């Protein structure tokens, strides 16, 4: 007899003298997983990403619990199948949430349906276990009540009933039912010895951490590689612009670099221009500056100057030190307004906001421009002429590329202010830059029609947002700006064309 066999025999013999151990049957552990799974999957805590993490852990706990019980009866086998389907669905939903796709409510409805099916299967499965163990009246009332309760909850969610007055009693009832289910599970602990645990090929830890690891990797990959808008980048092959119109515009002072980027149709739309107004704004690198010292105090320094200190000199005068942030240009925004009289006899101003990147941005996720057009702040002076256009351009490998925006929309939103709500108009462009490209430009053009014979001022804002890091769930640059997480994950540049009529020569 080998040493191991002899040891096993003696240990088995002497173990009789030890106090009998606590419960070891398969039921308790499996039901613990199932109950925790139901609790984590059903309750949601909307902070610290817990509304993503807890239901995901809940999903996999349900799989692990039902995996042990799956061979016991048909209902539990169904519950296992449904839990696997729910875990796959959850994984897909988690990955899709990292991508710029509209999920809709299909995932939520499918998840609810699977959960409902799982609860019904659990109820029938527990009744089956009770019957198999020889119970006189096999039943599992708490599991049945939970299935009914969940159905009611789904119905309430579908008809849109919500609010604290409803949530609190629902939560209380849910906790009572869950407690009853725990009690039922304990009462079935002795019955549960009749269960035969199904063999497994992967350990619980491997399934749990494997699932969470794969999902986390997929989500991170989706965030890093997928948080971009689909674009149709093509080598630039524009039709030639009308030379006469082009010459007229240049003569009126239209910036050549902006004109070069317009399409032939857009240039044609500018025919008959009587005036061209141009303003330029430059953005510099916020981390690079030069130090300037001066003995002249200036109350009105440029906004790139940042006062640091003042030092008294021997002769009693002061020497002032500034950090001047104009070392490295990041981007340039050129605002152009072309005044012309349309075929309808109305006075039009075609406004163009043109962005040019002097450097290459470090991150290439999503970009967005939200224009507050001329009629945004002065609806009594301007209205939309209905023409919106624009695109993104860049160079790669010394070859020019162009693409339409992923989205270019004109709309309005309701703004709540001190004097009540008001409708604010916007023009929005969304896009992503081409990987490996440089010399990047984007412009948005719109037509504003003057409602008065002589307009007083033209005020057109361009809010450019650049996403600097991925966000979960996916939110594009503009959504990040509109969100409440201030300055997290995006750069915002607010710049405007502001012209008073008396400034025009």
């Amino acid at each position, binding site marked *: 007899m080998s040493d191991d066999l002899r040891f096993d025999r003696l240990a088995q013999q002497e173990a009789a003298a030890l106090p009998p151990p606590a419960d070891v049957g398969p039921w308790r552990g499996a039901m613990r997983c199932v109950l925790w799974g139901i609790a984590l999957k059903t309750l949601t805590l909307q902070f610290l990403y817990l509304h993503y993490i807890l239901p995901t852990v809940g999903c996999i706990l349900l799989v692990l619990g039902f995996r042990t019980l799956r061979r016991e009866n048909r209902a539990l086998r169904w519950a296992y199948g449904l839990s696997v389907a729910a875990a796959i669905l959850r994984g897909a939903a988690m990955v899709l949430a990292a991508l710029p796709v509209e999920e809709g409510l299909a995932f939520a409805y499918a998840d609810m349906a699977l959960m409902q099916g799982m609860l019904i299967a659990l109820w029938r499965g527990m009744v089956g276990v009770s019957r198999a163990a020889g119970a006189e009246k096999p039943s599992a009332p708490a599991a049945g009540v939970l299935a009914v309760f969940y159905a009611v909850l789904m119905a309430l969610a579908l008809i849109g009933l919500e609010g604290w007055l409803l949530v609190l009693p629902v939560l209380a009832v849910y906790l009572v039912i869950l407690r009853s289910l725990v009690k039922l599970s304990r009462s079935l602990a*002795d019955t549960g010895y009749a269960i035969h645990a199904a063999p497994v090929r992967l350990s619980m830890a491997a399934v749990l951490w494997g699932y969470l690891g794969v999902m986390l990797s997929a989500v991170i990959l989706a965030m890093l590689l997928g948080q971009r808008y689909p674009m149709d980048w093509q080598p630039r092959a524009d039709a030639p612009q009308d030379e006469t119109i082009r010459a007229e515009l240049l003569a009126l002072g239209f910036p050549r670099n902006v004109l070069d980027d317009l399409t032939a149709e857009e240039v044609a739309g500018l025919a008959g221009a009587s005036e061209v107004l141009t303003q330029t704004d430059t953005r510099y690198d916020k981390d690079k500056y030069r130090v300037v010292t001066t003995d002249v105090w200036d109350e009105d320094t440029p906004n790139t100057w940042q006062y640091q200190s003042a030092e008294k000199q021997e002769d009693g005068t002061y020497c002032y030190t500034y950090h001047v942030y104009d070392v490295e240009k990041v981007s340039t925004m050129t605002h152009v307004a072309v005044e012309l009289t349309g075929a309808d006899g109305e006075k039009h101003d075609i406004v163009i906001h043109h962005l040019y990147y002097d450097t290459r941005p470090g991150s290439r996720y999503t970009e967005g421009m939200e224009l507050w057009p001329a009629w945004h702040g002065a609806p009594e002076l301007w209205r939309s002429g209905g023409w919106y256009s624009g695109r993104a351009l860049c160079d790669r490998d010394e070859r020019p590329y162009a693409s339409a925006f992923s989205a270019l929309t004109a709309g309005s939103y309701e703004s709540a202010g001190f004097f009540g709500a008001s409708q604010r108009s916007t023009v929005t462009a969304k896009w992503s830059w081409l990987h490996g490209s440089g010399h990047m430009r984007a412009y948005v053009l719109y037509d504003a029609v003057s409602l008065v014979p002589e307009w007083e001022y033209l005020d057109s804002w361009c809010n450019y947002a650049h996403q600097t890091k991925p966000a979960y769930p996916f939110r594009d640059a503009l959504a990040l700006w509109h969100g409440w997480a201030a300055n997290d994950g995006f750069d915002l540049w607010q710049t405007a064309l502001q012209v008073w009529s008396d400034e025009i020569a």
Partner: protein
Amino acid sequence: MRMDERTIMQKIANGDEAALQALLRRYGPLIRYILHPILSDDRDREECYADISVKLWQTAAGFDAQKGTLKAWLTAISRNTALNRARGLRPETELTADVPHGAGSAEDTLLRQERSRLLARAVGSLTTGEQTLFYRKYYYCQPTAQIAAELGVTERAVEGRLYRLRQKLRQQLGGDFCE
């Protein structure tokens, strides 16, 4: 619950057959769960189950709720009865809940008591997971496949853990345990 157990055992001790039936209905799955890995033959298990029922009927008066739970008492009786049947031991060397080993010489008895003491101390020093594994292997005599399925791990993993458990126990118990 403890009161219920005491009452039910009192009733059985007083000859209440319905109380015994109720007890077996409740704990039947547990008894069968214990018998299953020890006795491979269905008929042996049914006969052993019947033996246990008789024992419960005969020894109900000996149950002392102060010493432990009814479940623990039933577990010990079921396990030892099954092992006795499996080993084909003579009645006078039967394992019982109170006297786990067969009678032998005084020296044998002392040696076994010392082994039991050593083992109890070694098991007490194990982690919860190791204790679970020990009890499943050496108390319930469960095969590797059953342990693996119920713990939700692979058989290979169980074998590895058992190997490490044996090493650890042998180290703690010293060479005397196996002699």
